[in-house]
């Protein structure tokens, strides 16, 4: 951290101060070093990727300073790795901030409630330091209505608010944003929980034309004032992305679509006639509404679907790049007529109700597919599995450009996974969830080691891997040996002994995020990764074989690491017993002070 900069001052630093060389000489202005800095400023503005910027900042102090002045977007991968004041001190001219809070396993109720990740301290600090802030992106953070009010008050030209998997606020907070941020272009509430305080936030947008380009509230479980929404859509000529929640009926969707034929991204609400309207519901020509949306490339929603209405989307299928049917319980016969028309499709999310046959149809129809997610209709371990290795094999054969796959199934074979590793060499993300724990290869009864081994071996671009099924230490040996680019690894109910984790910690040099649950890894394995933990964003280990003693050793060996032990209810007293959850991450500013009782920081 450079002490040279005066916090909050937007001007470039005084060229005569604290230079490391030639400070005695006086030159006619502009000073050559100053010239260099001016040039650098201009050049660095073209550098947007944060890795490149991080590298540039390490060259020398002058570059560090200049880079800090020209960075307009700051990404904080772990909200507790650095304090808000440190960020605002280093980067004075920020326009856009992205902050991530809780680790991913919190989505599955593995984290005690009220763990943290509060936006409050950030908005308070940034409100003073960044009056020109335009964009905030938060993932897995907790916000209050007050935070949102403060945001609206602090940032006059605020344009984009994206909240992904966040919680803690209600419709009152949304109303504050809608009313205070007159320049608002993007309001994205993907996967975010909003408490229903009864406030009609849609009506709080200002009168007259708005700048809205994107309004996404598909998982907000509050009823909305439809007339207000219709009026809002009508006076938002720039609106391109609209994703509605399931309170919006099909008839209402029609009315919105005819007002916004310029939409590129549409998320429907309920996709079927609503009971409330019943027989009085006009039967609109939905197909004509869809065909009027000539720019539509991304379609989602389809909640509470009545499959008979699906043909309405035929007119847009040929142009679709992204289709999300993961809430639509449809079978293969209902999928086929749609998917056959989607020749340009690159992203597809479906439910396993389409069965292996449906996936075969996808493989035949979508050669350009880059991302596939198959979600389970019945997400339980013992349910019947309509998709299997057959579907995976078909996809691998029909979609060679596949880059990302998330596949839930009840049974799998190594052969199919190996086939995918060979047929889809561009895979970057491979997430396979065999829902029965410790499930071996369905046919050979062997562990899934060879399958996952083939993935890390053959998919040279792989950066994210999630494993499942029966896995021995051998699988981890493969991952450690070949998974050199892997940054995110998810492990559940796998491995035999400490050796497994050791392979990974010693071999995966690029590992950033490691999340492990219910696997037999203990203190010895934990201690084998000491050389690497400072390079990681976090390590999560729950229900493994760790002891408090082992975690204490790590904390002692690595003072800049925050080692949190989380306990589930009823397990508070764990003097030297087993650890429920270990969550550790590096931090420049030491342990946080907003912990709840279930958290112990060593």
């Amino acid at each position, binding site marked *: 951290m450079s002490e040279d900069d005066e916090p909050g001052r937007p001007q470039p630093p005084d060229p005569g101060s604290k230079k490391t060389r030639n400070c005695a000489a006086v030159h006619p202005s502009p000073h050559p070093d100053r010239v260099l800095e001016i040039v650098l400023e201009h050049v660095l503005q073209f550098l947007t990727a944060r890795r490149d910027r991080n590298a540039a900042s390490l060259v020398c102090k002058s570059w560090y300073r200049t880079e800090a002045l020209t960075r307009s977007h700051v990404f904080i991968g772990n909200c507790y790795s650095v304090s808000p004041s440190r960020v605002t001190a280093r980067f004075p001219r920020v326009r856009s901030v992205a902050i991530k809070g809780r680790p991913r396993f919190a989505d599955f*109720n593995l984290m005690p409630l009220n763990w943290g990740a509060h936006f409050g301290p950030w908005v308070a600090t940034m409100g003073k330091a960044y009056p020109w802030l335009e964009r905030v992106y938060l993932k897995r953070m907790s916000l209050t209505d007050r935070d949102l009010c403060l945001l609206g008050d602090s940032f006059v030209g605020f344009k984009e608010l994206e909240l992904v998997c966040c919680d803690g606020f209600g419709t009152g907070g949304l109303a504050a944003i809608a009313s205070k941020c007159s320049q608002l272009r993007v309001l994205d509430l993907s996967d975010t929980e909003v408490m229903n305080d009864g406030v009609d936030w849609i009506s709080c947008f200002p009168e007259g034309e708005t700048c809205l380009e994107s309004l996404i509230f598909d998982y907000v479980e509050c009823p909305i004032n439809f007339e207000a929404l219709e009026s809002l859509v009508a006076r938002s000529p720039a609106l391109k992305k609209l994703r509605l929640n399931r309170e919006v009926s099909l008839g209402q969707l029609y009315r919105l679509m005819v007002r916004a034929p310029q939409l590129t991204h549409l998320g429907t609400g309920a996709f079927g006639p609503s009971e409330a309207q019943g027989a009085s519901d006009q039967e609109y020509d939905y197909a004509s509404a869809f065909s009027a949306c000539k720019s539509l490339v991304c379609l989602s929603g389809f909640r509470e679907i009545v499959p008979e209405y699906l043909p309405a989307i035929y007119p847009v299928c040929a142009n679709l790049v992204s289709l999300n049917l993961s809430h639509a319980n449809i079978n293969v016969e209902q999928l086929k007529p749609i998917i056959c028309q989607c020749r340009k499709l690159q992203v597809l999310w479906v439910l396993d109700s389409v069965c292996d046959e449906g996936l075969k149809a996808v493989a035949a129809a979508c050669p350009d597919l880059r991302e596939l997610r198959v979600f389970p209709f*019945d*997400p*339980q371990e*013992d349910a*019947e599995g309509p998709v299997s290795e057959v579907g995976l094999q078909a996809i691998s054969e029909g979609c060679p450009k596949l880059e990302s796959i998330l596949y839930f199934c009840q049974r799998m074979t190594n052969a199919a996974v190996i086939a995918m590793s060979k047929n889809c060499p561009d895979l970057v993300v491979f997430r396979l969830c065999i829902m029965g724990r410790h499930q071996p290869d369905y046919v050979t*009864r062997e562990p899934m080691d060879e399958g996952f081994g083939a993935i890390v071996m053959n998919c040279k671009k792989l950066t994210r891997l999630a494993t499942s099924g029966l896995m021995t230490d051998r699988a981890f040996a493969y991952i450690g040996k070949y998974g050199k680019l892997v940054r995110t690894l998810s492990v559940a109910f796998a491995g035999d002994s400490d050796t497994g984790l050791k392979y990974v910690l010693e071999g995966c040099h690029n590992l950033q995020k490691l999340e492990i649950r219910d696997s037999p890894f203990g203190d010895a394995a934990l201690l084998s990764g000491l050389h690497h933990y400072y390079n990681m964003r976090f390590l999560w280990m729950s229900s493994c074989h760790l002891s408090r003693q082992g975690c204490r050793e790590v904390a002692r060996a690595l003072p800049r690491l925050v080692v949190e032990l989380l306990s589930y209810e009823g397990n508070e007293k764990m003097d030297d017993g087993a650890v429920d959850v270990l969550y550790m991450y590096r931090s420049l500013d030491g342990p946080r002070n907003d912990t709840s009782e279930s958290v112990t920081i060593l």
Partner: protein
Amino acid sequence: IENSNTYFAFSYKTHQTCNPIPTFTLTPLLLLRVRHQQISRVLQKAVEGSSRNIKERTCFLKESLNFFGLSELLGKKMGSFETDLNLEATELRLGLPGREESDKSSNGTRNCNKRPLSESEPRPDGDDEGPKAASAPKAQIVGWPPIRSYRKNNLQPKKAEAEAASGIYVKVSMDGAPYLRKIDLKVYDAYPELLKALENMFRFTAGEYSEREGYKGSEFAPAYEDKDGDLMLVGDVPWEMFITSCKKLRIMKGSEARGLGYGV
């Protein structure tokens, strides 16, 4: 079998379904009151339910028909499901009530680690120890499979939630009565209460129920239409199954009423 009134308990070693199947709920210990004439009816419903778990149900069907010495019914009722039969995959054992299944599954709590089985070698005996090895109902593992809660909840249509909150209302008609009534099945715990309520509502007496002869001693017979549209006699299936499958009640009268309960 035809004359007995005994409850038969079946326990079997396959995995149990956690979801209630529309017409036939399978639990590790399933109590069936069977009636000779109704066996094929009831068991056929098990087969004709949703397509899920069809293997399990067809095996159960075959085994139970064998047990009752009614395997000749298999040919008539199984139809296309014959090809789905794979008895080896789902080992069924039929036993008398009170037999305990050994619990091989690990406890499904957060503190669970591996199963007691050794993981590193494949199971030598070849039968499916996979997802079906745990015989007892698997305790819900927290956060597994890793699906976000909104994905689990959203698959329930809103109407089901409303129903759960507000009761199960079905129409009740009586042959000869000018208009229908509606009752909330959730209000009752078992058949006797329901029958009493119906008797009060329509001023009739239902007679005495026996599984062999239906309602004896009355010219009325309470019947219901189930999800498949079939007319069934009230009282034949377990109460829980009844309230989820009953769409309409009909109190039949006269010769039609007497005819019900005999034959297929």
